[in-house]
Each structure stands twice: as structure tokens, then as C-alpha cells.
């Protein structure tokens, strides 16, 4: 492992490109613009339609957006169910060193 973990020397450096909020904002605007363009194109370009859902205008955009929101929300709920602390599996092994681990 290299020893470059210098925690407190950041102030010496010049601020990077992404450190400036304006830059980030600018990038995001470009991104939003592209999104709009893509939606607009949906109405311009003739898509091949294989399935019924695809007839919905901007189906892919909507689906992508909703899918991700759904995914994240579901994952958050999932966390409640399955999240444990990092030492979860190693806890009991301290009592009896080197036994039964991975026994299938």
C-alpha cells in the first residue's frame, strides 16, 4: 500500500476542476440540455416499434427514470431488512477460534 494518504494538505493544492461549484453547475446544465434534446428527438425520429409499450411517447426515458427511482427506494427499504454491522459474521468466531467456519 502506498503512503500517499496525506489528509491535511489539500489546501496547498490548486482547486481542481470539479471543486468549483460553477463548473459542476455548468456540467449539469449541459446534461439537462442533452436530456431535453433526447426527449425532443423522440418525437422527431421514427422509432421501430416491436412492442406495445414502446408506443408510449418517450417510453424509454420514462422507464429509465422511474426504474432508477424505484430501484433506489426499494434498496433503501431493503437496507432496513438486511443491513448489519461490519463485524456481523465474525462476532461468534472469537469465542472459538478457527472452528466451523465455512462449514457447509
Amino acid at each position, binding site marked *: 500500500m502506498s503512503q*500517499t494518504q496525506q489528509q491535511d494538505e489539500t489546501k496547498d493544492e490548486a482547486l481542481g476542476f470539479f471543486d468549483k461549484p460553477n463548473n459542476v453547475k455548468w456540467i449539469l446544465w449541459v446534461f439537462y440540455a442533452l436530456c431535453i434534446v433526447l426527449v425532443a428527438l*423522440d418525437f422527431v425520429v421514427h422509432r421501430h416499434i416491436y412492442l406495445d409499450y414502446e408506443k408510449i411517447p418517450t417510453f424509454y426515458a420514462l*422507464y429509465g427514470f422511474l426504474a432508477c427511482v424505484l*430501484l433506489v427506494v426499494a434498496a433503501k427499504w431493503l437496507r432496513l431488512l438486511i443491513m448489519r454491522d461490519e463485524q456481523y459474521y465474525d462476532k461468534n468466531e472469537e469465542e472459538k477460534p478457527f472452528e466451523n467456519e465455512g462449514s457447509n
Partner: protein
Amino acid sequence: MWIANLPPFIPFFIGALLLPFLPNKARYFTLLIPILGGLNLFFGAQDGNWHVIKLLEFDVQIMRVDKLSLMFGYLFHIAAFIAITYSLHVKDKLQQTAGLLYAGSALGAVFCGDLIGLFIFWELLALTSVWLIWARRTEKANKAGVRYLIFQVLSGVLLLAGTLVHYQTTGSLAFDFIGLESVASWLIFIALGTKCAFPFLHSWLTDGYPEATPTGAVFLSAFTTKVAVFALARTFPGTELLVYIGAAMTCFPIFYAVIENDLRKVLAYSLINQLGFMVCGIGIGTALALNGAVAHAFNDVIFKGLLFMTMGAVLHRVGHVMGSDLGGLHKTMPKTTIFCIVGAASISAFPLFSGFVSKSMVMAAMIEAGHEYLWLMLLFASAGVFHHAGIKIPFFAFFAHDSGLRPKEAPTNMLFAMFFASALCIFIGTYPDLMYSLLPWENTYQPYDITHTLTQLQLLFFSALAFVWLNKMGLYPPELRSVNIDMEYLYRKMLPEIGRSTRKATSAFGTSGRLMFTKMVSYAPRMSKTSSYSTAQTAKRMAAILAIMLLLGYVTKMI
């Protein structure tokens, strides 16, 4: 100058056997093995069944060449080249040796012609790869390695059982289409499925890969699962069940990936997700689908390898890959950052990147096969992939909030390997015909049309938009140090608990048993007492016996 039909695993094994005895610098020469081996395969191999060796009463075919095996043969040589390049700086010869053996075993499995050979190389895959985990040399890695090995051997013994039952019922050991009919085929199916990380059998992957060494994970991500995909393509193409399994595989891991903190574990989940696409393709079983599956396997090796390499570089420099504690690394590791983004774009199937040209084949085949709902699932998964692998990995590792870490750029050999992989990703993405020409089945697919490009871009951009929006709203789940319960729970928690309580019970039982025995013994008459007999007693006994005898004598007479 080429050796015709040389089984490709041989140079790897020879190299691996020599390496431990050569000086440290010799590891640079191992690079020649995949290069020369790959060229040899390209120029020297002809379709057909070449070498047969005899083990006991069985003829084991170790060089069976057809387009499918050649495709994977090339792929594994490329993967081996990348992985070896990536690991050149490592001075621990164990890893290189294991890596060579591992790659060789994968090649052996791909080119073997019957189930015995498959079994042998199947087990060798397990046996050689586990060192890449153990070589991490931490207590956690040791145990993870053992668990990994158990799972791999489980797959091996299932394959063995299936093979033997198959052999016993059909008399055939051919490594060809088997189809899901008998118990034997089910056993083989599950065996392949285990290595292919089917749901509920996947935990070895997410458990083991994150514990591997930085370079080890690159090797691991390339071979084991792809051999399984290859074997499935050989034995179970067109098996309906695989479509459903594949669809499940694409979807469930992304939930885990979103909340997982260890970025290499995220990659491991995303590996399962990508495997899902391939499994779907095999399950559909049309030429397009199979081509898609194979092509996707080809690409996946490279871009997943690339992602593992970037994370490996971070791990190498920082010492961990916990999303919660990373961020802002782009400042000092810009090249790695770029490579990572290329990998992320590839895996998310951005147009012009390699994932796009193969994933879309599977998707198209899915529609053709009429699995509408499953197609929707795959689409959902595609969006999800972008979400966790395409955005989450680069974002949390290299951007996000500045963690203050200022690691050095990755070593040159790593950069070169990453560059090579990135170049391949882009090359295949922009010029897919070369890869398409290698595909085993008839192929007329054309990835780049307007509809497809547009819809894919819409999907990806709006997924990204969702990410941005969720982040802005603060809804995005923060990275937390944690462990998420997965199938491992069964054998890491439940079984040991059961074992522990059983032991407690049996030992209690044993103790009480011993106590009871001691008690019984103490109640038993003491036999050691010296008898003080009396003559009278004996005389009495004599009289008694006499009386009895006389009585009996009379009685018997009377009767």
C-alpha cells in the same frame, strides 16, 4: 512456426511450473505466453477433435476445436494478457503462478471434448483460483477463500455426480447438448449454475471476489463464470428455464449493488447482473441470442476486468475500496478515472462502447422470442446497471465529496493494462464487425440504427437524471459501512449456530451419560472384596445341590 493444434493450456501450465524456480524478473516473460499462445491458437488450430489421452479406461479429449471454443479461446488469451500485464508489478510469484494455472485451466475447460475433461479442469479452476484470494493474506481472505473453495468444489462434485449418473444411464460422456430432462442433467445444470452464480448459488462470488488481491480479482472476474457460460452454451442452449433464471440474475443483484459499500463487491454484484444477460441469451437459444450471449461474455470479460482493474488500482494505492471513505481521487489518479469511466460506459452499454453491441443482441433476441415481461426486466436491469456500475462506481470512488486522499497514479503496468482494455472496449464498440465475424453462429445483427441508439441513450440519460435528482433531493442512500445479509447467512451464521448448539447439547448429553455411568459403577457390588468363606457354607451348598438333584431325580422318574 506454429504448433498445430497445441492444447492451449499447455504453455500456461509449463510457464506456471517453471515460474517458481526462475528468478523474479522472469515474470516479465510470462507475458509471452498469452501472446504466443493466442497467436498459435489463431494460426494453428483447425476445427476438429485432436488430442486424446487415456486415463484409466476413459479417452479424454483435450483439444476439441470449433467456433465456440475458439471464440472463448481468444477471449481467454486476451484476458490473460491483460491480467498478467496488470499484475506484472506484483513480486509475489504465487499470484502469477496461480494466475497462469488458472487461465490455463479455463482454456483447458474450454477446449476439452468430454465431461471427464470438463470435470478435471472444472476442479482445477477452483483449485488454482482460490490462491488469488488467499494471497491477500488476511484472516478474512483466508476464510473467504475456504468458503469460495467449498462452493467451487460443491459445483465440481455436483458436476461429477451428474456426469456419472449421465454416464451410467446413457453411456455417453460427450460434452454436447444435454438438455434438462433427467436427474443427471439437473445435477449438471446446478453444477454449471453454481459456477455461473445462479440466484441462491451466487454468494461465493460476492463473498470471494471482494476479498481477492487487487490483481487476483481481475483474473477471477475473467475466467470462472465465463467458463460456466461457455459450458451452459454447450450443454443447455434453448432451455426455457434459463431465461427466467437469467432475468432474475439481472435484477436482484442491482438492489444489493445500490446499497453496497465495498466497491469491488458492487462490481461482483454487477458481474452477476451481466451474467444474467448471457444466461438469458443461452436460454432463448436462437442463433441471435446465443451470439449475443457469447459476444456479451467476450465484452464483459474486458469491461468488467477493466472496472476491477481500476478498483484494484485504487485498492493498491489506498488500501481499501469502501465507497464511504473514498472520493475525489480523480485529482491524483486522472488516468485511472478515465479508464474507469470507459469501463463504466461499456458496462452500461453506451453506444460506441462494447457493451452496447452485445447487450442489444440479447435484448433483441428476447423480444423476438416473445418474452415481453422478461424484456422489461432486462430493460430495468440495464437502467440499474448504469445506475450502480456506470455512475456509482466512478462517482463515489473518484468524485463525490473529497475524502482528502491523494494517492499516486497507478503503476505503469496497471495503466497499460487498463489502457489496453479501454482501447478494446472502444474498438469493439465502434467496430463490432471484427468480433461479430468470430461469433459461432450465423450473424446478421446490426447494432447501430437510429431507434436503438436513441432509445438506449434515453434510457441511460434519464437513469442518470434520476441519480442526479435523487442526490439533489437527498434521497440517495448514503454509503454506510455495513454488511448486507445475503445467501451467505445460511452457512456463515445459521449453520455454525446450529452446529454450536448441537455440540452444546451433545456434550451435555455426554457429560450426563458419564455421570450416570459413574453412579452405576459405584452402585455395583464391589467384586474385589476378599471373600471370607466358611466351610459350613460350602457344605450347605453341597447339601442343597444334592437335594435338588435327588428331587429332580424323583420328579423325572415320576413323569
